[in-house]
């Protein structure tokens, strides 16, 4: 079954919509769902043109497609456990919060907190991701714990903060402090990064581009060939300031 939600033109287009109801499983019982626009409760049909194609007996066979201006819609795919969501444009904050299964694909850009506290499943972002991509919540000890986030463009600051499990792969560059407070999982950055892995406890980070402002409390262990990546990399251990045992691998210039 395919559910197509096309956003309607709104009088106040800047007011955020909170739509955690938009997960495949919820459409098994129909499209009578509630979302919020600012402090007002709205039905899904007040904000979207809804088209349903085919039927489904189980949620894994449901695909939700979002079209139109969806850049201010928050929390799409929150607690999603199966099925798929395809977003044809940009998506608002907190897409895929707490997601445990299924796939979200975003053809445009994703705003901040993409895949926050994710536990499983896959998020593919074809454009850029905002700040705090694949991270956690304020004050919480663990960020993303499982699953995979792949960003084909670049990501903002604090990418994979508190990463505790799963894999985050950014094909472009990232901003300041990627992998800060990391304690597990794997972070791969094809492009450049600034101050990577500050204060990390554990986990692995691979950077194929250039590193700006390396944190001074990482200890260089060795330079070796990394077969999985087919590169020669400097391997660091850290963050020593934080009694960390994480691994940071930075491709050496010119190695392929």
């Amino acid at each position, binding site marked *: 079954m395919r559910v197509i939600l096309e956003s309607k033109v709104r009088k106040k287009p800047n007011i955020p919509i909170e739509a955690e109801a938009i997960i495949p499983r919820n459409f098994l019982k129909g499209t009578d769902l509630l979302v919020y626009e600012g402090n007002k409760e709205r039905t899904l049909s007040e904000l979207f043109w809804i088209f349903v194609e085919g039927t489904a007996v189980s949620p894994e066979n449901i695909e939700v497609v979002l079209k139109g201006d969806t850049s201010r819609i928050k929390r799409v795919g929150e607690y999603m456990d199966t099925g798929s969501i395809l977003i044809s444009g940009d998506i608002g904050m907190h897409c895929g919060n707490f997601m445990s299964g299924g796939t979200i694909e975003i053809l445009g850009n994703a705003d901040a907190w993409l895949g926050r506290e994710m536990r499983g499943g896959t998020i593919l972002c074809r454009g850029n991701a905002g700040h705090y991509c694949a991270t956690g*919540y*304020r*004050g*919480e*000890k663990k960020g993303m714990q499982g699953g995979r986030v792949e960003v084909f463009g670049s990501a903002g600051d604090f990418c994979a903060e508190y990463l505790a499990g799963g894999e985050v792969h950014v094909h472009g560059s990232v901003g300041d402090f990627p992998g800060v407070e990391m304690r597990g999982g794997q972070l791969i950055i094809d492009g450049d990064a600034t101050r990577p892995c500050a204060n990390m406890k554990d986990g692995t980070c691979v950077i194929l581009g250039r590193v700006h402002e390396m944190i001074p409390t990482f200890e260089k262990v060795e330079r070796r060939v990394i077969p999985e990546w087919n590169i020669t990399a400097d391997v660091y251990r850290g963050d020593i300031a934080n009694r960390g045992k994480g691994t940071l691998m930075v491709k050496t210039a010119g190695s392929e």
Partner: protein
Amino acid sequence: MNEILVKNACVIDPIRGINGDIMDIAIRDGRIVESVSDRAEIIDAHRCLTLPGGIDSHTHVCGTKVNFGRYMSPEDMRAGRTRRHGRMHVTSGYYVPTTFGNSYRYSAMGYTTLLEGAMAPLEARHTHEEFTATPHQDMLANTLFDGNWAVMDAVREKNIPKTAAIVGWTLNAVKGYAIKLTNPGGTEAWGWGEDLTSIHEKVPHFEVTPSEIITTMIRANELLRLPHSVHLHCNNLGKPGNYQTTLDTFDLVPDLNPDRQTLYATHVQFHAYGGGTWRNICSKAEDITRSINSKPQIVMDMGQIMFCRTMTMTADGPMEFNLHCLHHNKWSNHDVELETGSGIIPVTYSKKSAVNCIMWAIGLELALLTKNPWQCLLETDNPNGAPFVKYPEVIGLLMSKRYRDEECATLHADTERRTSLFALEREMDWHDIAVMTRAGQAKALGIVNQGKGHLGAGAEADIAIYPIRTDSVDPAREYRKVVEGFQKTRFTIKRGRVVSRDGEIIVDGANATFWTNALIPEDIRVDNDPEFIRRFQEFYTVRMSNYPVQDLYLPRGRRVDTEAFS
């Protein structure tokens, strides 16, 4: 005139010796009376368990340290969120809820009076501000004196009247209710990053020992004729082998007051550890309760822990730092100049941890091994051992051996060997629970005369009606019904108004704050003592005139005058 008649109540009122009688309770204008007119609103209790309003004699719900616990825990705030509806404000938080969250949840459980366990005098205004935002319970504040410079100087001079005068002035200034000593002397040592490890070790610079502070304060307390006794958090909290310190401390306590205990020892579970390291820690609840059973002058509370994520917060700064070094989680510390300290860290009590399982067992052992329930009161040192919403489970455990056995089967294998809990058969009855959750507290806090903890004519009409039929529920077998029953009253009546019905708050609160005012002879009043004033102005960072809490911070202040020195 506002009248209510509660009909067909199954009343347990230990202070008046009533145990399960079916009776009516008449209420007029906030107090219990002999009878009411036929215009009274009728509440039919349908023979359900009806008790005086619950009293928590040691909880942390308001003030600097509690609020800092909230401030640093946005992750907890998303655990207990409710929306504004009807009379209820928004609430957030599970183990450190907002003030309204605390108040509503206590009220739903039938609690109508709370003693905030630790108020630093310098920050008392904050505590009182939060009291007014905890509107459904009458409040009392334990006032911290454990590292008070003026007190330690007077103790060193062995001057009991002067000690009493300092305490009396301070309680009056900060609108406090009772004397609290938290790790006496240790909090001052913590000002230098140190701690005291025995009650006979001297406080740096001040040259007094915890034992001297405790004994002098006990005498000063009685000289002031304060309604409550000294309220003590013993030295060496949470350290393996600390039971000896606790026993030594208990041995210091004379029997000075015919109406109540001479010492209230709080959260004793945390002070009843044998062994010497975390690896060989074991229960010494039998030793502790042997001492308590022979000393009617001491009342303690359990300090029960429950398995959950929670927050520890105490004036005991050094203890919190040691705990932090063990847990490597976030740590806050807040020393208060010339007075005390405090620390906060989050913890998770887990059944996988042998230490945690032993702690859990010790709390229950203490209650079950104390012969007289008036001497061991039920609490969790909220939120240190667990948030107070766990009280119904604690009640269930005390009333049912079967429930304990089921829990014990899920614990770390070492628990049985290192505690005596598995062998204890005792099952407490409804009356015991009524004592341990209200009557005992009222007596220990000295507020029976204020109309608390009983349902006799003249008492404040604070009443909890639980959806429990004691004639049909067997707590030993149907402990789940007991737990559920104590989680949510049918009605909670506070000062003659139904404030909570089936867990829903239906009116705005209008609590009162009790504080003590000891009348001290002019010639020894410290606010007349130039040396006291000089040192205050020189070493505090607020002026003495800006220190006292103005009356307007207690919109419904209830002053308890005492004939000190008489």
